[in-house]
């Protein structure tokens, strides 16, 4: 398989997905390069810090995707952070799409000219690279969200993740944990029913709940549709390759006045397909990725709501237990203590939850704004470029034909 080493020198494009990251220079994290071997991606996580809690001011470690998942899951399970929105875990690197394309390309090789095949292969390599870059950036964002969070950045496990210079050798999820995971999902769906059914006393949380539930399903749908749209765009760009190649073949054999037209047309299509490809990938980065990221973020916010709902349920249960204890006059002190703890926990969750959700909204609006502006600007830029390419092509072609065409237009 391909062994790809990617150097990412420019600021991460996806950073616009979640702004205000890496502002605090006391802890700066980035993923400067990564290695793709077979199906495994090895990320180089580089940390620069002025904090004393770390042994060195500047260091790097190698991490795999599973290590990121371990870190995320550990944070989610940490009781202390129940009132926080835990940044969503980065998705697994998915090279399925380019791999499938490569397979198809291999099958269709016989029907294409050498030139066509080379171009398709280039396209494929570019796509592979794009997927690769995306996955690197998504992992980077995850870490940067953590480092910029006042509470999470101090987490011990996070430090271990950044610093431990040996292989983290995260135990594969053994059977027990798998089952545990399954159980957790079941609990989650029960939670969904729980919070959607009960009306919350607190106005703020009630509104947030309604909003997030609805928004989540909408944004999930939009993400899927945006993905399909981008894929169609890429298909159109690929078609241009084939058409351009065949036009060149025809032009090569042609010895009439048509030859020049065909060649110029073929050339134009070749340039166009590159622009179309860029349009598709820009759209993907600015729109599809944006929607996808916030879909996951909203899920994380929903998780916060679930935890709060569970805490509320716990509190209510403890109340009932206290009443029962008082009735029986048995273990009252213990029940009182339990109730106090539950209330404390619930209040803490509510307080930090409110803060988190408010800042989340702000973050989301800013990110959407930035991306939508950038997308519109890029679309305009690409379209303008297309117009220039077309006009140049028409110019280079038989200009006398323009007379004929204008004449016809005059009569219309």
């Amino acid at each position: 398989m391909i062994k790809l080493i990617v150097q990412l020198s420019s600021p991460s494009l996806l950073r616009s997905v979640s702004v205000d990251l890496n502002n605090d220079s006391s802890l700066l994290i980035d993923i400067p390069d990564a290695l793709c071997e077979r199906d495994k991606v090895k990320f180089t996580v580089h940390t620069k810090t002025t904090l004393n809690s770390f042994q060195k001011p500047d260091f790097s470690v190698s991490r795999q995707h599973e290590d990121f998942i371990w870190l995320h899951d550990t944070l989610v399970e940490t009781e202390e952070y129940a009132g926080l929105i835990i940044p969503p875990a980065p998705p697994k690197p998915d090279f399925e799409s380019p791999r499938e394309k490569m397979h198809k390309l291999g099958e269709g090789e016989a029907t294409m000219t050498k030139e066509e095949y080379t171009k398709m292969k280039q396209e494929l390599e570019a796509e592979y690279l794009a997927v690769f870059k995306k996955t690197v950036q998504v992992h980077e964002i995850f870490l940067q969200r953590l480092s910029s969070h006042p509470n999470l950045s101090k987490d011990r496990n996070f430090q271990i993740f950044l610093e431990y210079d040996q292989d983290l050798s995260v135990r594969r999820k053994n059977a027990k944990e798998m089952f545990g995971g399954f159980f957790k999902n079941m609990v989650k769906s029960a939670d969904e029913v729980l919070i959607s059914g009960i009306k919350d006393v607190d106005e703020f949380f009630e509104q947030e709940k309604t909003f997030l539930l609805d928004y989540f399903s909408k944004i999930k749908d939009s993400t899927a549709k945006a993905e399909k749209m981008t894929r169609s765009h890429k298909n159109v760009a690929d078609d241009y390759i084939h058409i351009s190649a065949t036009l060149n073949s025809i032009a090569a054999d042609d010895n009439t006045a048509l030859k020049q037209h065909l060649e110029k047309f073929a050339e134009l299509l070749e340039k166009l397909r590159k622009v179309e490809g860029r349009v598709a990938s820009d759209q993907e980065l600015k729109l599809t990725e944006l929607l996808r990221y916030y879909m996951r973020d909203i899920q994380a916010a929903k998780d916060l709501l679930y935890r709060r709902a569970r805490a509320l349920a716990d509190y209510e249960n403890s109340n009932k237990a206290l009443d029962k204890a008082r009735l029986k006059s048995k273990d009252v002190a213990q029940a009182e203590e339990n109730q106090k703890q539950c209330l404390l926990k619930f209040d803490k969750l509510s307080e930090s939850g409110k803060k988190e959700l408010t800042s989340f909204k702000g973050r989301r609006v800013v990110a959407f704004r930035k991306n939508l502006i950038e997308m519109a600007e890029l679309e305009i830029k690409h379209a303008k470029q297309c117009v220039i390419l077309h006009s140049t092509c028409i110019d280079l072609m038989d200009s006398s034909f323009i007379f004929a065409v204008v004449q016809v237009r005059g009569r219309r």
Partner: protein
Amino acid sequence: MTAWEPPDRPRSRLAYCCPEKMAEDREPPPLADAVQTDFREVEEGEDLFVSTVSTAEQLSPTSPEPASFPAEDISTNSNGPKQEILLDDDQEDLFAEATEEVSLDSPEREPILSDGPSPAITPVTPTVIITPRVDALFDRSLDEDEEAEENGDTFDMQITVSDPEKVGDGMNAYMAYKVTTKTSLSLFSRNEFSVKRRFSDFLGLHSKLASKYMHIGYIVPPAPEKSIVGMTKVKVGKEDLSSAEFVEKRRSALERYLMRTVNHPALVKDPDVIQFLENTELPRAVSTQALSGAGILRMVNKAADAVNKMTIKMNESDAWFEEKQQQFENLDIQLRKLHASVESLVCHRKELSVNTASFAKSAAMLGNSEDHTALSRALSQLAEVEEKIDQLHHEQAYADFYLFSELLGDYVRLITAVKGVFDQRMKTWSKWQDAQVMLQRKREAEAKLQYANKPDKLQQAKDEIKEEIEEWEAKVQQGERDFEQISKNIRREVERFEKQRVKDFKVVIIKYLESLVHTQQQLIKYWEAFLPEAKAIA
């Protein structure tokens, strides 16, 4: 031989620009046959500059903007080295005169050059060409207008196929199309008239023309293909988008078919064609049905032809034919491939349009769900933009199809007709050779008779043989004449075909580019309208 001057004399180029000279050189097409033949005897390379073709063609190897036009490009246009040098030298003079001749405003369909010098043209910049499209469906008459116009001669005929109407019910239903002809040719009794025709009428017309003209080497434009699936849907009465599209596709194809047919100088005069265009009632062409007696006969003949093609080994003495046949073989393969790629493009663009529309809806819902007011508005705006864009893609797919894909499909079928004509030539040659063989046999038989031993029957046999020999000598001569005639015809037809092909493709390429440009410009407009909305998110 007409007043054609060899191109290596600079003056001859300027002669094109001189109106009086042009009137001399030009001959109206109905009489063109005799004249054209002579032209065709001239070197192939010079055909491009023959005056019977449009002005645009004549000017085409050169650009009216000499400053921007690099010398190398000119060479690829002309057919022979002599012309290249010529054009380079004469660029300045040539263009000065040329710009005067081509009138942008003249509404007549008269040959452009027979006018007096028209007002000078303002330099054309690309933006002038780009006019917003008037309708989503591409202006089909444009093709035909230009062809008629640029033929330059007094070929003035415009045919439109319109108003498809369903007649009857159930499986016996059919679509009737209105065929309207506008012409000033004296061949027809009126200047403007229309008739109702159904699809099988068109097939019938083609079948008659093919049987009359293919065997003497004329390239008869093929009729649009039958489609059982398409027609069944229409018959059954499905009033959906796909049947409407099918009918439109067919209507457009029928129009192009008729225009190509009448553009042929010999076919337009054919009584069957005239009858087709003029007569209110036309006998039903049942023989076009696949399972009719004629249909079966056709299939048998096709099979026989295929076998013959494999067995006839022709001694090609003329390199031109060999070259051309090879050329058309290659072109056939390439065009089919290109057609397939373009069809794939049409399909993907339609998909893109559908996916964009579905995303637009989704974005609208998301906008509704969003509780931040400004962002909600921006998302709704995004949904609107995407909806407009999906329309744009849809229109572009239309252009992809009707401009590009259909042209390629037409030419794939046309080239099949061209190959058919080459095959006819082979058959003619074969017939001639067979006649020669028979003649040889008869002569041998005659010679044998000289030494026969039956004096009483001898005289009778000798007379018989003499008669037969005469008969076969005549056949041989006829065979040779036929072969020469078909060869000549084919040469002429191929020239005409190539010219038409160049013209058609050039026109389509530029029109297609314009459609692409238009799409991009609209995109710019939409996104520029959206940008302030996005920036307004507080």
